[in-house]
C-alpha cells in the first residue's frame, strides 16, 4: 500500500480511536459495577461494600481521565482530518455527536467530580444516585456514538441535495432506530461490561493468589461474574445480530470476513480456518463447517448468500448507474439548479448510486469517459483486504467464547462451590486481563476496516473524505499523538498497577472490625 495523505489520515484516525477505546470499555462496565457495589452498601450498610466501591472507584477514576482526554481528540478530528466527510454528512452525523454531549457526556463528566469529592458532602443515598448518574451518562454516551457509527455502516434517512453538495437528513427516526446502530450499541456496551468483569475478576484473583483482601476479592468476583455472565451472553447474541443485519446492508463486509469468494448454495458453510489470498481471489486450505454461515447470515436454510465475486458484479451495475447520476449532477450544478424536470428526475432515479461514481473518480478523472476495464477496477475496489478481516474476526470470536467460559466458571464456583477457586484458574484469570481488550480492538477493526473503501457505506469513498492537508501536517500530528498517548498510557498503567498493588486504602479499620465480628458466625455457614 502506498502511504499518501489518505493512508496517513486513516492511520491517525485508527490509532487515536483504538487508543480511545482502550479506556472506554472499562469505563462503561466499571461505572455500573461500582454503582452496583455502592447500592449494596447503601442497602445493607456493610462497610466492606463501601470499601469495594471506593477501591474500584479509584481505578475507575484513573481510567476515566484518559477516556475523557482521548475523547476530545475524537470529537475534533473529523473536522481536522476528514473535512470533506464533515461537510458531506455533517448534517446527519453531527447531530448524534452533539446530542451525546447534551444528554450524556455532560451528565457523566459533571457528576464524576462530585462522586470523588462528595463522600462527606452528600448523604449515602444521594452519593449512590450520583454513581448511577455517571453510569447512565457513560452508557447513553455510547448509545449516541453508536447511532452515529451505525449510520456510517447503514446510511438511512438521508438524501443528497445537489444545491448544497451534501447528504441531508430527511428521516431522523430512521437514523435513531437504525437496526445496525441498535445491534452495535448492545454489542458494544455488553463488551464493555465483559471487559470490566474480566478486569475485576483478574485483579481479585491476584489478591486471592496472594492471600490479600480476601473479603473484598470474593465479593468482587461474585458481583463481576454474575454481571459478566449476562453480558458475555449478550455480546455473543448481539454479535450474531450484527452479522444478521450485515447480511442486509453490508454483504461485502460479511463475505470478506468469511473469505467467501464464490456464492455458495444455501445454506452456506462457515470457514473455520483458511488462508485468504487476495491476488488469486480464493481462500486456500479452507476447513468448512456446513450450514453455519447460512444460519448466521440469513437465519434460514434456503436463502443464498452472495460471494465476493457476485457482489463485485453488482457493484459494477451500481457504478454504471452512478455515472448517470454524476452526469445529471454536473448539469444541475452548472445551471445552479435551473434544469429541466427530466434532468432532475434522472438524477433522483440514480442518486442512490452517486457514491459509486465517486469511487470511480479514484480510478479515472472523468467518470463519463471510463472504460469497462476501469469500471471493473473500481468495482474490485469495493472489496476490502480479506485476510486481516478474516483473522481479526476469528481472534475476536475466540476471545469472546474464552471469556464466556472463564466468567461462567467463576460464576458457578462462586455461587455453588463456596468460592473455592483452584489456583490454576485464578492464574488463568490474572493472565486473562488483556483478553477483553484484544477482543474489543479486533472487533472495531473488523467493523471499520471491513467498511472500506467507504467512510459511509456506499455513499462516500474514504479516499475522497480527507481534508486538503499536506502530508507533513498529518505526519507531525500523528507523531505528536502517538508520542503523547504512549507516554500517558505508560503512566496510566503504572498508576493502575501501583493502586492495585497498594490495595484498598479506605475504611481499613472499620472493615477489619466488621470482619472480625462476623467471622466466627460466618464459618459454619460455609
Amino acid at each position, binding site marked *: 500500500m502506498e502511504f499518501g495523505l489518505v493512508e496517513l489520515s486513516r492511520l491517525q484516525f485508527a490509532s487515536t480511536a483504538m487508543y480511545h477505546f482502550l479506556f472506554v470499555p472499562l469505563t462503561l462496565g466499571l461505572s455500573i459495577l461500582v454503582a452496583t457495589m455502592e447500592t449494596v452498601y447503601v442497602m445493607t450498610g456493610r462497610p466492606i461494600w463501601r470499601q469495594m466501591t471506593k477501591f474500584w472507584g479509584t481505578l475507575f477514576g484513573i481510567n476515566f481521565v484518559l477516556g475523557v482526554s482521548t475523547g476530545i481528540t475524537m*470529537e475534533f478530528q473529523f473536522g481536522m482530518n476528514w473535512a*470533506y466527510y464533515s461537510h458531506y454528512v*455533517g*448534517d446527519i452525523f453531527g*447531530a448524534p455527536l452533539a446530542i451525546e454531549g447534551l444528554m450524556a457526556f455532560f451528565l457523566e463528566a459533571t457528576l464524576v467530580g462530585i462522586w470523588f469529592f462528595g463522600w462527606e458532602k452528600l448523604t449515602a443515598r444521594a452519593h449512590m444516585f450520583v454513581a448511577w448518574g455517571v453510569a447512565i451518562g457513560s452508557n447513553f454516551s455510547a448509545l449516541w456514538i453508536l447511532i452515529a457509527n451505525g449510520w456510517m455502516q447503514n446510511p438511512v434517512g438521508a438524501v443528497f441535495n445537489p444545491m448544497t453538495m451534501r447528504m441531508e*437528513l430527511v428521516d431522523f427516526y430512521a437514523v435513531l432506530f437504525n437496526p445496525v446502530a441498535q445491534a452495535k450499541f448492545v454489542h458494544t456496551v455488553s463488551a464493555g461490561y465483559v471487559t470490566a468483569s474480566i478486569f475485576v475478576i483478574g485483579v481479585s484473583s491476584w489478591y486471592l493468589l496472594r492471600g490479600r483482601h480476601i473479603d473484598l476479592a470474593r465479593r468482587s468476583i461474585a458481583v463481576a461474574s454474575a454481571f459478566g455472565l449476562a453480558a458475555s451472553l449478550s455480546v455473543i447474541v448481539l454479535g450474531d445480530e450484527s452479522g444478521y443485519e450485515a447480511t442486509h446492508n453490508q454483504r461485502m463486509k460479511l463475505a470478506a470476513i468469511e473469505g467467501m469468494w464464490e456464492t455458495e448454495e444455501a445454506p452456506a458453510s462457515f470457514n473455520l480456518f483458511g488462508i485468504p489470498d487476495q491476488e488469486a481471489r480464493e481462500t486456500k486450505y479452507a476447513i468448512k463447517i456446513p450450514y453455519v454461515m447460512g444460519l448466521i447470515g440469513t437465519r434460514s436454510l434456503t436463502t443464498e448468500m452472495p460471494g465476493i465475486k457476485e457482489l463485485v458484479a453488482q457493484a459494477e451495475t451500481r457504478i454504471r448507474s452512478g455515472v448517470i447520476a454524476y452526469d445529471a449532477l454536473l448539469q444541475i450544478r452548472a445551471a445552479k439548479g435551473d434544469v429541466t424536470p427530466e434532468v432532475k428526475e434522472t438524477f433522483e432515479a440514480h442518486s442512490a448510486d452517486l457514491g459509486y461514481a465517486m469511487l470511480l473518480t479514484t480510478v479515472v478523472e472523468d467518470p463519463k469517459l471510463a472504460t469497462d476495464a476501469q469500471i471493473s477496477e473500481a468495482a474490485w475496489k469495493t472489496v476490502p483486504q480479506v485476510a486481516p478481516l478474516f483473522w481479526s474476526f476469528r481472534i475476536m470470536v475466540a476471545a469472546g467464547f474464552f471469556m464466556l467460559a472463564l466468567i461462567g466458571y467463576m460464576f458457578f464456583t462462586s455461587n455453588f462451590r463456596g468460592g473455592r477457586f483452584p489456583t490454576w484458574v485464578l492464574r488463568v484469570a490474572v493472565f486473562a486481563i488483556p483478553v477483553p481488550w484484544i477482543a474489543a480492538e479486533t472487533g472495531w477493526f473488523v467493523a471499520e476496516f471491513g467498511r472500506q473503501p467507504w467512510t459511509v457505506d456506499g455513499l462516500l469513498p474514504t479516499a475522497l473524505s480527507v481534508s486538503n492537508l499536506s502530508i507533513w*501536517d498529518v505526519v507531525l*500530528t500523528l507523531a505528536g499523538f502517538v508520542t503523547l498517548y504512549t507516554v500517558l498510557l505508560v503512566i496510566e498503567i503504572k498508576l493502575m498497577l501501583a493502586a492495585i498493588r497498594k490495595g484498598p486504602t*479506605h475504611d481499613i479499620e472499620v472493615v477489619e472490625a466488621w470482619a472480625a465480628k462476623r467471622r466466627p458466625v460466618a464459618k459454619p455457614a460455609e
Partner: protein
Amino acid sequence: MILHELLSYEILRVIWWVLLGVLLIGLAATDGFDMGVAALNPFVAKSDAERRVVINTIGPVWEGNQVWLILGGGAIFAAWPPLYAVSFSGFYLAMFLVLAALILRPVGFKYRNKKESPVWRTRWDWALVVGGAVPALIFGVAVGNVLQGVPFTLDETLLPIYPGNPLSKLLGLLNPFALFVGVVSLAMHIAHGATWLVLKTEGAVQARARRIGSWAGVLTIVTFALAGVWLAFGIPAYQFVTEPDPFGPSNPLLSEVVRGGSWLDAYQTRPWIAIAPALAVLGLGSAVVLMRLWSGWAVTASMVGIFGVISTVGLSMFPFILPSSLNPSASLTVWDSSSSQMTLFIMLVSTVIFLPIILAYTSWVYKVLWGKVRPEDIARNPNAY
C-alpha cells in the same frame, strides 16, 4: 415530518448563531476559570500545600466544564458543518496544539498527587500552566484571525482548501493583530481564574490571586479597547455584493462577497449592539473592583465581562461567521453555512430539553461544593488531587 417547519429556516439559523455564542460563552465562563487557575497556579501558590489548594478548587468541576468544549465541537459539527470542516482542518496545527494542551490538563490534575516526589509535582504544575495558557491564547488568536478573514477557499464540490505547508499556515495565524487578540483572551482568562481563586481560597493564595487578577483585569479592558481601535483603522471587514437568501440552501458559493468597510460600521446600522462592548467593560471593571473588595461576586462580574467580549465579536461580524481572505465569496455566513432546516430544528429541540437539565445539575454540583477549599479538607479526602 412537517413539525420542523414550525420555525422558519431564517429564524432557526439565527437561533443557532445565538446558541453558538452561548456555547462559546459557556466554555469561557466555566472552563475559562479552570484555564486561568491552571495558568496562575505556580504564581499564586508557592508551597505544595498551597498548590494543592489551588488545584482542588477546580478539581471536582473541571471535567464537567470541559464538556462545554466538546459540546461546542459537536454543536458546530451538527449545526454549522461547513464551519466545522473549514476551521478545524484550516487551523490544523493550532487545533493540534489545543488538543495536546487539553490532554495534558486532565492527566495533570489527576496524576500530580499520585507521587510524593517534588520533581514529579513541579513538572505537572508546569504542564498545567501550558494546559491552561495555551488554549486561552490560541482561542484569542483564532478570533483575531476570524476578524481578519482566513486564507481558505472552497472548490466546486465545496471541498475546503487551505493552501500552504504546515509551518507557513501556523505562522500565518500568528500575525500581530491575532496575537494581540490572543493577549486579550489570555488576560481575560487569567483575570477570570483569579476571581475564582478569590472566591474559593483564603490567606496568601487569595491575596496573590487578587493582586495578579486585578492587573490582568485592567490589562483585558485596555487591550480590548485597543483591539477595537486597531479594528477600526487597520482591519478591513467584508461586505456582500449579492445578499444570500436567508431561506436558501447552505452553499457559500451562491453569494458574492468583497473586502471593504469596517466591522465597526455595524454600530451605525445597528446602534443597539453597543450594549455588548459596554457590558464587556462594565463587567470586567466591576470584577476588578470586586476583587479589590475581596468579594466572591467578582466571578459573576467577570462572567458578564466575558459575555460582553464574546458578544462584541459576534454582533460586530453578523451575519459573517468565517470570512475568507483568499476568496471572499467563499466566506461562511449565517445564511449559507448551516445544517438543513430539519437538523437545526431537531438539534434545537434537544437543546431546549437538555440545556436546562444540564444547568440544573451543574448548579446543584456547585452548590454542594460551595465554600472555601482549605488544606485540611484536602488532607481529609483521599480522592483529592
